[in-house]
């Protein structure tokens, strides 16, 4: 399993907390596997929770007409990078 950077671990914690993945530890999330579908298997309600948590903690707005959504949600690593580039708070 490849190592998570400290920021990726922080985002992993945010994901685990916001969608109540009680049976998963943040450090177990593979940085390059998909967050939705195969991978962590999260669904649309989880996307809503994650978007909310990301908005509140980092001030990064996620909207569904963003053509980059596929890339943003491709993996923990991609999501972390997206947040880091745009964060206004946190």
């Amino acid at each position: 399993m490849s190592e998570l950077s400290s920021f990726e671990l922080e985002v992993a914690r945010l994901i685990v907390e916001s969608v109540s993945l009680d049976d998963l530890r943040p450090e177990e999330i593979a940085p390059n596997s998909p967050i939705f579908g195969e991978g962590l298997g999260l669904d649309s309600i989880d996307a809503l929770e994650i978007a909310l948590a990301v908005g509140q903690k980092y001030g990064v707005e996620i909207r569904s007409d963003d053509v980059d959504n596929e890339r943003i949600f491709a993996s923990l690593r991609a999501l972390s990078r997206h947040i880091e580039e745009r964060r206004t708070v946190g």
Partner: protein
Amino acid sequence: MDAGLQARPSGPRPSSVGALQAESFPLCVHRPEDTVAWSRAQRINCLTFLSHVEHVARQLPGKGHAVNLCDDRYHFLVTFCAVLLRRQTNALPHGRTDAAIAECARQFPDSYLITDNHIDGVAYSLGTVSGAGSLVSTPEIPGDHTAAVLFTSGTTGVPRAHSQSWSNLLARASVTRDRLRIEPQASIIATVPPQHMFGLETSVMLPLVSRACTDARRPFFPSDVRDALSLTHAPRVLAITPVHLRACLEAGLQWPDVRFLLSATAPLSVPLAERAEQTFRAPLLEIYGSTETGAIATRRTAKEDSWRLCDGLAISQHEGQIRLTGPWLREGFVLQDQVEPTGVDRLRLLGRSCDLVNIAGKRGSLADLTNKLLDIDGVVDGVLLADDESGRPLPRLSGLVVAPGLSKREVIRALARQVDPVFLPRPLYMVSELNRNASGKLPDRRIHAMLKTARRNCALETREVPQRVEVGSELRRKVRPTFVP
């Protein structure tokens, strides 16, 4: 104005549905220049809408049940009406899983799929909605025509089909229109899909009977909801689920004026309703209803405890059952929930049936879901739980499974083939046995204690990353909404 395009002012009155079954009713009550829909921030007037309907109707196969999976609400509306124009029936499966669509096709072998998105194996794909038709007046549809078939999950696990005649759908929507006093040309924005009964009644049928206009989008994230509201004109009506509502309130955004909010699909808490009214500076009406009945009653949750029955409906108590009757429920419908009549048109909802669970607006039977879990090869014992220790509904089901030869991933994979993804348990713990009592039962108290132990053990162990499969195409659309006609 085209004098030929005349529509009746409203749909059939609830008291007269039976007598009017044989009559015909117009597709919509809009005037020719009225806006019927907002599509990509553009108004679509009634003349253009009707020409789109006719254009699509001409392309449909000769006969059958149209499984209408269009994501874009305007595409759905045009398709819905085109299907009626061809005297065919819209089939609306309760989910987008292959199993839900296959079940629809099994019950209606003449089904064909219609979508506005690329799905493998789709028989008919709506490329663009454009092209001029030659309709000069609003077409009429016979009241007794079966306009739509909706499915419920059913306690046995086999989805049950519920047919709705055109006059029934109109009468139900007219009742909601009158209760809400929807203004002509109000904009209706909905976070629910049009295939769901709440979405169908509020964002498809309600505009057709009230000269209101529907917004083509299905806003998902809070920013989407705000954008959808901003890009439509006042007065605005927001039809939203409690899940989306909570997300919107917590997002801390500035909201455009909203005339009122409608909430349904899951119980709404009083504090959430109060916060919504403060934030949106508008009343919030909660709708109590079901796929079988449509809207049954409404209440302003922030201000009142009891529900006001929708006009035309009546409830009666008989042998411990509460039966709902009305013009479009002539055989009556026995409510699953515990309901106490408190006046001629008032009722209190004491509790939901404990077997029925509602996750993200999808209804399922806990007994049926548990049986599906137990039916998996290799599963020895298992239990699913829908409430927390205080009896409050959990956002997801929790599960405990005894399956010595299987990994958690295998159990989830097998279950995902059978049930809608929202019902996949989270967390799911693999345990060596379930602590059943002497009579073989598992009181909730014991399940909670086992869950607590499993959670503690899990935190101490290092395990493989659990993987889940099968996410609805719904999600792929939401995180990858690149559809351009």
